[in-house]
């Protein structure tokens, strides 16, 4: 850019003035960094300091380099409009991470000088981002699913003033909740089953002027991005309506696990063995008749009921559901109480291996005990139903260690089966792949959203069919921006939890439409205006960006080029890290903006005994941990040169080869944990980085370099003491293997 004008400022506050030769740093910025204006200030973040910078900006400075504290501090003070700002972290990561002793002064100053060089190099390559003019502005919210989750989300969004479209597959609202006799108590004293209130809720939805309900309908095509989704809503009768919405809440609920897969418990062999859903049906039918529940097989009076917990759940053998559905212990207690209400003399026994009654369920458990429900820790082996309709339950009593324990003369057996999420198609399984039973995985799955996204028609799943969300930090998020999963499709849950979930998802949907309307990113870079673009002429149509984007943001245009949908993009840069020809970039973050920082530093020669180690640190966890290490007074090697990256996924291999080629002695990468218990803020970024790095050995071999020249580490944000240790360990390792032979080329 012809009229680039850099202003570089060095702060003397917070001890910087005493520990560093700030004058020398401004000279580095001027001579090597080619800064047009350089200034020192005794407290750069105070109003005079800021005014000084602003004055220069008014007079033509359009790139600002601030040599002061971490970019994570004083963000409001150093917030200048329409100029690119590069923050040079002299405080946390230079003076606070180095010993204050006089002997350390030289190395500390060298470190600070390199940081200034890097800041100036970055400033040259970035511009202040402006929002994509094509962002969508539709603020309507689509809710898919009319059960308690969907109805709550709709009501909450409507109450906040947003227009809602609610699509329900069935002919009535209510979903599974409408099939319940009563619900687990959600109010003090948590002692008795409570009315579901489903009719009132459905009426509220139907009467709300802001909510439009589509019954007997499904979403048959969903395209677009936050703020500009286009959705086909198809009625059972055949008619299709296309609607535009800004965000989507997917509340598609669950299906009870198929109890016919449990013949050992007598399901399907006798009417007197039911699942929890079956018992609700009995209770509702009896209540409608105003009569007590009777034995389904012969209408006899019920005197004894046994509940089998974890039926087909928490199964380690791999035959049934592996997980716990969370609500079923409370549900069985609730159902046992139906019988105690009917007649306190009915014997009700709950056979469990672990009773799990989270939250206020403890009070409910006590209440069930008080009512005389018998709890027995045991594992049921078999349920036999005799010709007279009475069942015998064989189980292993785990407290009395009685393997042949039995309950006989049981009139009704209730199986606590689990929740299977209605999450549609698992897009990570190729449609023709077969599972163990030889069933084609894609065959029986029916898509919920029918997304036209290139990565597949539904939102990605984490485990067991539940949709992926960032469990630690952003539970309501999915890997499709602007689409929020809520309720048992996200994780197993009961009504109270689903209500909470739905409220959270409604709020996220509102945020999404508001952000989209301003062209801003959703979390974790919320508010970010930058978005990826690619240089069409350079693209080889390799599709790597399209495939690797954790959020499915990239489609394909008619000419088979990648088509970025900035509204769906989280600005992680994973596509940028993936692109083999390096044509993807952001206005303020690019292969070049980081690459030139790497090349800007001064690499002393082989005999100086001053190695240089590049540290590419994830800005979400590793970089804050480095800052905190400085704040907490941990010192670490003065040979480290850190560059914050948006995500390890954004690391392009060229940075590493370039660093090694230009004489760095080692490269460290610090990112979040990957795998099943990932903590990566961009879900797949650190995983992809790990995968890409697994191939680095070949590169190192080609360069004739040792394996240890590159090290990838996982750190959490709390690893404040560990991060300096990791750095020092690595510095020691580099000392051990010796200096890089690539210096001075």
């Amino acid at each position: 850019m012809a009229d680039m004008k850099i202003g570089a400022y060095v702060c003397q506050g917070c001890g910087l003035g005493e520990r560093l030769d700030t004058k020398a740093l401004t000279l580095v910025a001027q001579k090597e960094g080619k800064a047009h204006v350089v200034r020192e200030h005794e407290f750069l973040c105070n109003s005079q300091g800021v005014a000084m910078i602003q004055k220069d900006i008014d007079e033509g400075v359009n790139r600002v380099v601030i040599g002061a504290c971490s970019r994570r501090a004083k963000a409001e003070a150093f917030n200048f409009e329409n100029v690119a700002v590069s923050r040079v972290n002299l405080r946390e990561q230079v003076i606070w991470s180095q010993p204050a002793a006089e002997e350390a002064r030289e190395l500390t100053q060298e470190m600070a000088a390199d940081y200034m060089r890097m800041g100036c190099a970055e400033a040259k390559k970035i511009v202040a981002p402006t929002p994509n003019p094509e962002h969508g502005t539709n603020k309507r919210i689509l809710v898919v699913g009319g059960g308690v989750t969907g109805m709550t989300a709709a009501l909450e969004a409507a109450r906040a003033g947003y227009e809602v479209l609610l699509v329900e597959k069935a002919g009535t609202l209510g979903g599974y909740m409408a099939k319940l006799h009563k619900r687990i108590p959600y109010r003090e004293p948590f002692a008795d089953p409570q009315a579901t209130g489903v009719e009132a809720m459905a009426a509220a939805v139907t009467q709300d002027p802001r909510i439009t309900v589509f019954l007997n309908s499904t979403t048959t095509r969903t395209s677009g991005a936050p703020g500009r989704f286009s959705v086909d809503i198809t009625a059972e009768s055949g008619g299709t309506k296309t609607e535009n919405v800004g965000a989507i809440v997917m509340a598609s609920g669950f299906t009870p696990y198929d109890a016919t897969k449990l013949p050992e418990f007598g399901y399907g062999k006798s009417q007197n063995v039911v699942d929890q859903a079956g018992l609700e049906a009995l209770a509702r039918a009896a209540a409608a008749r105003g009569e007590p529940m009777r034995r389904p097989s012969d209408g006899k009076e019920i005197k004894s009921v046994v509940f089998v917990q974890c039926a087909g759940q928490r199964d380690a053998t791999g035959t049934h559901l592996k997980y716990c559905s969370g609500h079923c212990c409370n549900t069985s207690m609730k159902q046992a109480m139906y019988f105690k209400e009917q007649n306190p003399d009915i014997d009700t026994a709950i056979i469990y291996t672990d009773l799990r009654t989270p939250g206020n369920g403890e009070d409910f458990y006590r209440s069930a005990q008080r009512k005389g429900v018998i709890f027995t820790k045991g594992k049921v082996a078999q349920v036999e139903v005799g010709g007279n309709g009475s069942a015998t339950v064989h189980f292993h009593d785990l407290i009395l260690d009685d393997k042949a324990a039995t309950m006989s003369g049981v009139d009704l057996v209730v199986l606590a089966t689990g929740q299977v999420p209605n999450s549609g198609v698992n897009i990570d399984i190729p449609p023709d792949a077969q599972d163990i039973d030889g069933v084609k995985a894609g065959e029986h799955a029916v898509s919920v959203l029918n997304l036209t996204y290139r990565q597949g028609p539904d939102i990605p799943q984490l485990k067991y069919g539940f949709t992926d969300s960032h469990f630690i930090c952003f539970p309501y998020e999915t890997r499709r921006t602007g689409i929020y999963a809520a309720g048992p499709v996200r994780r197993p849950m009961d009504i109270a939890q689903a209500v909470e979930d739905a409220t959270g998802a409604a709020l996220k949907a509102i945020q999404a439409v508001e952000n989209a309307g301003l062209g801003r990113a959703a979390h974790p870079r919320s508010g970010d205006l930058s978005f990826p673009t690619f240089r069409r002429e350079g693209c080889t149509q390799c599709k790597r960006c399209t495939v690797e984007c954790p959020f499915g943001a990239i489609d394909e245009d008619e000419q088979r080029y990648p088509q970025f949908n900035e509204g769906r993009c989280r600005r992680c840069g994973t596509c940028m890290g993936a692109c083999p020809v390096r044509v993807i970039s952001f206005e303020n973050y690019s292969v070049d903006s980081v690459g030139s920082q790497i090349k800007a530093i001064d690499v002393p020669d082989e005999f100086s005994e001053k190695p240089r180690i590049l540290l590419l640190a994830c800005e979400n966890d590793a970089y804050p941990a480095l800052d905190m290490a400085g704040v907490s007074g941990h010192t670490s090697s003065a040979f480290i040169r850190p560059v914050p990256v948006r995500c390890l996924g954004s690391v392009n291999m060229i940075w590493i080869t370039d660093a090694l080629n230009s004489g760095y002695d080692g490269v460290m990468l610090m990112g979040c944990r990957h795998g099943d218990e990932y903590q990566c803020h961009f879900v797949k970024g650190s995983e992809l980085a790990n995968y890409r790095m697994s191939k680095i050995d070949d590169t190192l071999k080609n360069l004739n370099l040792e394996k240890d020249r590159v090290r990838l580490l996982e750190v959490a944000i709390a690893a404040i003491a560990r991060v300096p240790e990791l750095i020092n360990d690595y510095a020691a390792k580099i000392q051990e293997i010796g200096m890089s032979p690539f210096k001075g080329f």
Partner: protein
Amino acid sequence: MGDINTAMAEQYRNNFLKEVEANVEEGQWVKMCMQCGVCSGSCPLGPAWEHPPQEIFMMIRAGRREEVLKSESMWMCTSCYNCIVRCPRELPITHIMHGLANYAHRLGLAPKMNPTRRFAKMFWNNLTKSGRVNEIELSVGLYFMDGFKTGIARAWAMKDIGLGMLKTRRLNPFGFVSHKGCKDKKGIHRMLKKAREIEDRRKGFAA
């Protein structure tokens, strides 16, 4: 009394639990146990019990009537109250143990030769006879309850404590001949008889 004694408790039904609730001191708490095992782990004698408290509670719920009532286990309780202090469900475990022992005894199901039961009986008779414990008679009775030879050996082992008690006048050496009962012996006997009647009525032992 006979029909309770022979009533067949059905497995994992509420019959025996209800019987315990009606007849055992603090028995209504048994259903509230959540089987955490803290009591068994806290009991200093736990490892010596055949069925520690947690298990006893489960056995009651499982309807193992005979096994529970004939057990030596609850007779092991020394009333240290460790379990009560720690039980997260606040069951008065100690009291239930004594209640069960007492109920089993009254049903005639308690193990005949259980030493705790025998001593408890001895103590009760000794105390109620005069309204005040006759130390010498009680200790001699205890030491010699299993015969003359063991009695001599036990008395010899305890001789130092015995002499110490004599010296501090905690033991009347002439108790056999001149034990001083309490003043209103008849009144005490009347009171005990009345208490017994009330309890019998409450627990279903009334004639």
